[in-house]
């Protein structure tokens, strides 16, 4: 852009001046080129969607706009004037607010303290807190964003935490709001409400950038949408001119199957039989309040629910690393829920494999190489053993084969796990667990942070295992995934099973109400009711979602 046109733009602060204009942004993290020469314009009063595979550079780009990272090259223009945004303070001053993918909240602070942090009015806290409390009330009224100001962040659910993040931005009077994957942690009802709020903000003239993986949301709410791939901006289109299929192809660069292809299930004997399972956490809070479930051979039981309603504890107790009470039988024989035979290795010996919810915190040792991770949890297996030593050669050969079969890229057993992309990390875990040929596979969030292409592959593997007659317990917060993969769906809320449904007999709306703890799914329900219910279901703050 030439000097002249720049001046021209500044002169005419007309509605056709973009609220945000990024020009030629580039950013490298060491050897990784996260953003390459990206330009983008967003008009005021619109919602602009950004989609792209994980690691495509979406968060990086937005973090640059928010002053969290500094771009190596490029310019930022806000409302027609060029801005230097060296830090977030400058971004806030320019009217930009951002809700990060991983919330930036101080967990043992109250909601109010989190809101004023960095936006205090003076050296003393008291007046700031009082003012924030008043403002919060107003905002709650205006947008229906209710929060409990004096609750500790670690005690409220993730949905509520996100609300705090949005309030933080509004409290700072942001005109431009960036939301990075906001709906990953919400129930459909909560997501709907969020979109209503976004709609209100748009109608007030605020500009919104929405990053999401869910094509449905893009189609539903955005005005324009950009697609990113491998650090580059590959396309920007008007939403009404495109289709989900086209967007998916733009993202991955090839045709993708958006539906899972699977034959009807042929369930066999009961493999897993859970009766009155209870779990109490370290703080003495009852996380599972008596669960009864059965999983049969050759079927996928999907567990739906908002994060933090006991699904994690269910997987942990079945996986052997949390204690519980009640009765759990595997192929008719009872499992030790506490004590000596309640650990990951005993479970594996009994034929339970487990793809954990958080591959980086649990499923993998990020500093271990791929081959070491392939033995993780199975390192006592005879085939990996040479006396007291580990048979590293055998493990490496085995890893190479598995990587080949699961199309892990690059297929290099000596690369550290942290150097694989998210999707490939997940494939390593999956290969390790599925190839064991377990009787029961526990799977938590199998496709979280995985791009569309890899999702397709992972879903196929799970279905294939089912078709071999294995029992599969699937936990996911993605309703779409639950609906697509499960042969039976149980919904969990606040440590209980609210009900079971068959996928063909239910829909997202009904499941969404169950997830909010409302069993009478036919009566009309207000958002407030859903919300009130969810507020009581404690979110687990220690899990990053």
């Amino acid at each position, binding site marked *: 852009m030439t000097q002249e046109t720049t001046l021209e733009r500044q002169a005419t602060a007309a509605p056709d001046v973009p609220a945000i204009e990024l020009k030629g942004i580039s950013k490298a993290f*060491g*050897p990784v080129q996260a953003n390459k020469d990206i330009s983008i314009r967003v008009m005021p009063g619109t919602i602009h969607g950004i989609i792209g595979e994980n690691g495509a550079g979406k968060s990086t780009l937005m973090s640059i706009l928010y002053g969290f990272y500094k771009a190596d090259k490029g310019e930022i223009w806000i409302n027609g004037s060029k801005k230097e945004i060296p830090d977030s303070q400058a971004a806030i001053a320019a009217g930009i607010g951002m809700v990060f993918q991983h919330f930036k909240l101080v967990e043992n602070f109250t909601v109010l303290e989190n809101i004023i942090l960095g936006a205090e009015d003076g050296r003393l806290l008291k007046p700031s807190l009082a003012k924030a409390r008043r403002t919060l009330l107003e905002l709650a009224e205006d947008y229906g964003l209710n929060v409990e100001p004096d609750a500790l962040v670690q005690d409220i659910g993730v949905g509520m935490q996100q609300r705090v993040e949005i309030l933080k931005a509004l409290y700072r009077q942001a005109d431009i709001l960036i939301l990075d994957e906001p709906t990953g942690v919400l129930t459909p009802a909560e997501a709907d409400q969020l979109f209503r709020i976004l709609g209100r903000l748009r109608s007030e003239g605020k500009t919104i950038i929405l990053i999401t993986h869910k094509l449905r949301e893009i189609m539903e709410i955005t005005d324009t949408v950009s697609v990113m791939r491998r650090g580059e901006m590959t396309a920007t289109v008007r939403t009404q001119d495109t289709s989900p299929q086209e967007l998916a192809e733009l993202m991955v660069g090839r045709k993708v199957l958006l539906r899972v292809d699977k034959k009807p299930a042929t369930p066999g004997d009961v493999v897993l039989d859970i009766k009155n399972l209870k779990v109490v956490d370290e703080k003495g809070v009852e996380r599972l309040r008596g669960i009864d479930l059965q999983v049969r051979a050759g079927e996928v039981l999907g567990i739906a629910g908002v994060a933090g309603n006991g699904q994690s504890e269910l997987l942990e107790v079945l996986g052997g690393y949390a204690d519980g009470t009640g009765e759990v039988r595997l192929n008719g024989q009872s499992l030790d829920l506490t004590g000596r035979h309640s650990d990951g*290795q005993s479970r594996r010996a009994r034929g339970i494999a*487990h793809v954990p919810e958080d591959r980086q915190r*649990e499923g993998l040792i990020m500093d271990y190489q791929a081959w070491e991770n392939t*033995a993780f949890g199975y390192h006592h297996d005879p085939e990996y053993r040479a006396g007291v030593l580990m048979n590293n050669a055998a493990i490496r050969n085995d890893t190479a084969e598995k990587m080949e079969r699961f199309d892990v890229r690059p297929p290099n057993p000596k690369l550290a796990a942290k*150097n694989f992309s998210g999707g490939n990390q997940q494939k390593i875990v999956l290969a390790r667990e599925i190839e064991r040929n377990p009787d029961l596979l526990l799977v938590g969030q199998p496709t979280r942070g995985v791009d569309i292409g890899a999702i397709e592959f992972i879903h196929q593997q799970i279905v294939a295992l089912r078709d071999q007659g294995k029992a599969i317990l699937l936990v996911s917060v993605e309703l779409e995934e639950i609906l697509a993969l499960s042969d039976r769906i149980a919904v969990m809320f606040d440590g209980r099973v609210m009900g079971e449904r068959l996928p063909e007999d239910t829909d997202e709306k009904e499941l969404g109400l169950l997830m909010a703890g409302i069993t009478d799914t036919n009566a009309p329900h207000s958002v407030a009711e859903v919300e009130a219910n969810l507020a009581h279901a404690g979110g687990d703050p220690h899990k990053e979602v």
Partner: protein
Amino acid sequence: MDVMPKWAEVILVPLISLLLAAIISALVILAIGEDPIAAVKLMITGALGSTYGWGYTLYYATNFMFTGLAVAIAFHARLFNIGGEGQAMLGGLGVALACLYIPWPHWSLALVGATAMAALFGAIWAAIPAWLQAKRGSHIVITTIMFNFIAAALLNYVLVNLLRPKGQMDPATARFPEATQLPTLHDLLAPLGIEFSKAAPANVSLLVAAAACVGLWVLIWRTRLGYEIRAYGHSESAAKYAGISPVKITMVAMIISGALAGMMAINNVMGEAERLVLNSTEGAGFIGIAVALMGRSHPLGVFIAAILFGFLYQGGAELALWTSIPRELIVVIQALVILFTGALDNMVRMPLEKMFLAVRRARAPKPERKPVEPAE
């Protein structure tokens, strides 16, 4: 993807850091009115210029290998064992008891017995803080510090009131019997026709220490236990998922750590002093922390770092012998070495990484772009 080639990470960075430490040390020497070049020469000839110097350098290095390995194995389980000092003191007690009260027929048997006792005593002294950490959540850093003080009091009691021969002024045990005297490097190398100084205290314990380095390497990188220890150290949550018991790993890692620290006593107590004196450890437990950190917790790194610190000690002793440089200067030099190689290493690494990255970018132009015009 690593930015720097491995050789740069393991050789270049420590080397430059050491150089910086040396430069600052030289400035300090200059400031107290001595000649740094002469001082360095004196240190090098004194520590490495003769088999005699080597004998002392290796003697000190042996101590640091044991304590360095002790800290290193605990680090692998992400445990910070500051208690090497106390564990080594207790190890000394074990050695003294073994040597004084068991009539050993030959030094080799005595060595085995004393090593076992040293390891046992050191292990016990580490196991208590480990247990408190695993079961009671007591911070291991604090408990191991406290256990250093308690060990000192205990040793004082034992030496003054129990093991000291009647009427002896020295709060020390009697001299160990002849049969427990360990062969020095002179004795060991003589059959091979190698002339090694008779006076230097380096002894067969050096071989034990070297074997411990190899053994620990095997343990950490080749056994299932080592695999579990490292896994736990990298990620406790993942370890739990895999069925690795935090309590077990904490206990086992600390017991091995304490045993290694205790084993230092076969070198200083059995090999050198041939009796147990108060304060026989002389801070080797703390030097072990620096050694482990500099050696990046790798047994080979610990081996090399221990020799570096042995060099500093012996070189420092030579300085003290032949110049009027106060001994505190040696402490300052150690501090600078620890500071630059341990805490300020990123000061060296960051610019180096930038350099390597720039070199790499220059070498590999982006494939999808046209080759850069050679004009500019």
